């Protein structure tokens, strides 16, 4: 595949993020598919941050293992990223930086970035100077790029003027012989929208009628709450709460009142939500909980990614109760599963956890989204008064009719204690009596029966299988799926016929069906955690042990190259 990657690096406060986003927008406008990601730190000024944007004329699955152009605003940025520049690639850096050692096989291109920025109005415009230079190197028409760049600053004429000047100075700092020295592929028919996982998920939830979002700030989930905060004019209620305990309990209240409701956090906040997760399971209130994982344990690496909470979310809270765990495999799936989660929650009256991670939450992809594919199923809601209403009626499928406060004649108490079919407690004066011990079993079995029902209804999708006839298969889930997909191509180039089995529905698992998919295949487990949690979950459900594992847990997303290298090693038995 023909693609070009550009990386811009600097310090926190240098505007690296906005420069990266701007490049992505310019490339998108030109008709390219985009995949972009940023590296940042839990500091506000200083350190090293980077933003890498990759473009192609077909769908991309990663932000690229190497870069064609690296623009570095600081010495640290050069050190951090120089090894990524491919042979024949360019390193553009601020000529004001001292003693810059290069690499033989790459071209060094010092530019007076700071000096030009000061001419344009201040050193803060270095990022825009850099954009100008990058556009020249890629042979992008300056007017086309500036249209997109300056649209951002329409409301602020001074800033617009300075940015315009900075762009021109950057563009003009390179002679015409440098124009287009990095060749762009022909533009293609790219995905319409440029979204990160969190935004796609928020819009998916909105499309499904989620009208209530509660959360406490925590990286990398915070941008979901910021999206909802910004969109209250849509009639969607947003509440920043005092803690995550309040967030999930508010969501339980809102959903009890008939409103589709969601809360979101990362692993630390989810730890606080755990008790209430069980409440939702016990009183059978549909809720959606987003858990965007970051590197743990404890505070871990707050700005880095990991898939280390899979076993936690599939098992969190005391006792047994039905839940569904979904892990979108791409930005596009963040939208669709973000929407689907609400149907599943309401149909089965249980918590649905959507498991993201920092990489999926924050990387940007070109996507095509069709809101027409979102359908609404609100499950069993009793609206007409009936005699002898049993909110927790024991049914064959385990699902009981739900009534919403405000509905005449159907009042009941939702109790976290064990209760009978009406919601009356069997936990105090009746507990231990033989008849009620039997009833407790029946109520517990009723709730758990919903797990069988969802499998029977085929509402729990089986993993996606690519290349059924392959000799060796990558087994993975969630955000590691896209780099695994790209790894298949790399393996093909190395003469290995590899396939992919990628899960997005993690819990419950249809043991028999999953067993059939995995049995008799040569499998390599690929995950971003240290212990192979998916492999453990599969073993628990199917008895199949996947011994070969390619794991990454240093805080970065696993790359297609690492996956290909790992799989190749196992395949060749070296």
């Amino acid at each position, binding site marked *: 595949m023909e693609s070009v990657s550009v990386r811009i690096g600097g310090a926190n406060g240098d505007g690296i993020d906005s420069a990266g986003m701007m490049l992505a927008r310019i490339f998108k406008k030109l008709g390219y598919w985009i995949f972009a990601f940023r590296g940042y730190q839990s500091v506000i000024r200083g350190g090293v941050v980077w933003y890498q944007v990759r473009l192609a004329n077909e769908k991309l699955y990663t932000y690229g293992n190497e870069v064609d152009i690296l623009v570095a605003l600081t010495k640290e940025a050069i050190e951090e990223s120089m090894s990524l520049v491919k042979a024949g690639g360019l390193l553009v850096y601020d000529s004001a930086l001292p003693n810059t050692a290069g690499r033989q096989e790459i071209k060094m291109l010092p530019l007076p970035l700071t000096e030009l920025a000061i001419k344009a109005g201040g050193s803060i415009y270095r990022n825009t100077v850099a954009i100008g230079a990058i556009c020249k190197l890629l042979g992008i028409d300056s007017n086309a790029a500036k249209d997109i760049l300056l649209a951002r600053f329409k409301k602020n004429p001074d800033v617009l003027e300075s940015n315009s000047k900075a762009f021109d100075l950057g563009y003009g700092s390179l002679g015409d012989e440098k124009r287009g020295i990095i060749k762009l592929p022909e533009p293609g028919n790219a995905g319409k929208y440029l979204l990160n996982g969190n935004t796609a998920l928020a819009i998916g939830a909105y499309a499904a009628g989620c*009208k209530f979002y509660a959360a406490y700030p925590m990286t990398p989930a915070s941008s979901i709450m910021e999206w909802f905060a910004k969109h209250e004019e*849509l009639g969607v*209620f947003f*509440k920043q709460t005092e*803690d995550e305990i309040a967030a999930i309990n*508010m969501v339980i*209240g809102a959903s009890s009142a008939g*409103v589709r409701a969601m809360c979101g956090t990362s692993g630390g906040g989810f730890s606080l939500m755990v008790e209430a997760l069980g409440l939702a399971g016990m009183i059978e209130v549909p809720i959606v909980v987003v858990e965007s994982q970051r590197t743990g344990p404890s505070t871990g690496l707050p700005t880095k990614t990991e898939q280390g909470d899979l076993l936690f979310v599939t098992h969190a809270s005391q006792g047994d109760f039905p839940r569904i765990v979904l892990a979108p495999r791409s930005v596009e799936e963040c939208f669709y599963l973000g929407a689907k989660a609400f149907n599943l929650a309401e149909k089965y009256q249980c918590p649905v956890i959507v498991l993201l991670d920092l990489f999926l939450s924050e990387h940007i992809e070109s996507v095509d989204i069709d*809101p027409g594919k979102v359908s609404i199923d609100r499950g069993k809601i009793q609206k007409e008064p009936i005699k002898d209403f049993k909110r927790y009626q024991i049914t064959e499928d385990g699902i009981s009719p739900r009534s919403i406060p405000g509905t005449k004649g159907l009042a009941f108490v939702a109790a976290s204690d064990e209760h009978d079919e009406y919601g009356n*407690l069997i936990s105090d004066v009746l507990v231990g009596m033989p008849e009620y011990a039997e009833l407790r079993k029946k109520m517990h079995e009723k709730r758990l029966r919903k797990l069988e029902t969802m499998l029977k209804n085929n509402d729990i999708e089986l993993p996606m299988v690519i290349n059924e006839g392959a000799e060796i298969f990558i087994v993975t889930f969630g955000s590691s799926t896209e780099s695994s997909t790209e790894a298949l191509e790399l393996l093909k180039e190395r003469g290995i016929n590899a396939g992919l089995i990628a899960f997005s529905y993690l819990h419950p698992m249809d043991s028999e069906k999953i067993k059939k998919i995995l049995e008799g295949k040569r499998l390599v487990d690929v995950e971003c955690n240290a212990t192979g949690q998916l492999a453990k979950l599969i073993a628990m459900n199917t008895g199949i042990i996947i011994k070969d594992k390619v794991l990454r847990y240093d805080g970065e997303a696993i790359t297609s190259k690492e996956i290909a290298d790992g799989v190749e090693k196992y395949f060749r038995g070296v």
Partner: protein
Amino acid sequence: MFTQNDYRSSIKPIFCPGCGDYGVLAALTKAMLDLQLDPDNTVLVSGIGCSSSIPHDLKVYGIHGIHGRLLPVAEGVKFANKKLTVIGAGGDGDGYGIGLNHLIHAIRRNVDITYIVMDNEIYGLTTGQASPTSLMGHKTKTSPFGVIEKPINPIALALAAGATYVARGFSGEPNHLAMLIENGIKHKGFALIDVQSPCVSFNELNTYDWFRKRIYKLEESGHDPSSFAKAMEKAVEFDLDNSKFPIGLFYEKEGNTYEELDKAEQQGAIADTPFPTGSDVLKVLEEES
């Protein structure tokens, strides 16, 4: 016209004979009856503890949640459908111990719910441990030499946090309490009603007699509930010397509720707003990209 039968369920309360919470149940029922609240439009949210079993004793929609979290659940119900009357009810451990954080924030928001705390200065359901409101020196199972930390003063705390309706009732005065609850429900905004509600099984200190000897009614002492300074003065009487302290309405003032100020709530009850159409979603997607 709703009658007593429309409010009281056939469940026999779990309260011990003589428990103060019977008084609260009677007062709450009377308040609902006097206000002619539609039980189907009323949601009573509780936590965990003896007092939190109260939703089962009434024929309203109830959520009997987990310990200390009744306020966020109640806020969620109210924010989702502001047309509902939402009442929270629980104990002192629930509200002033494990859930205290939520109380301060619910007050800040001035969300339009009424919160009744059945305060018995003890953990009753777990059979007699010191609570956040147990008095200094009170000997309990977990303070055999007497409590050595100061009790929470919920009235002063609520006032300091900016509460717009702060009252203290006594289970032994159910009519007075019913009046406080009724006015609390009518009050636009957050209403805290701390109810001194004796535990006859595990608190031998704060008995009905103990209270009767000490309490007097603010309504009969010329207190001006519109004065914050006077309210605070009355609130700390309990801390200065609990030989005499008031019950009644300490403070009430008008203020915007969270629902009145929130952009989404201003468009109507969230439960009533329609789901977005495909073109609504497309518009959002376009704006985002």
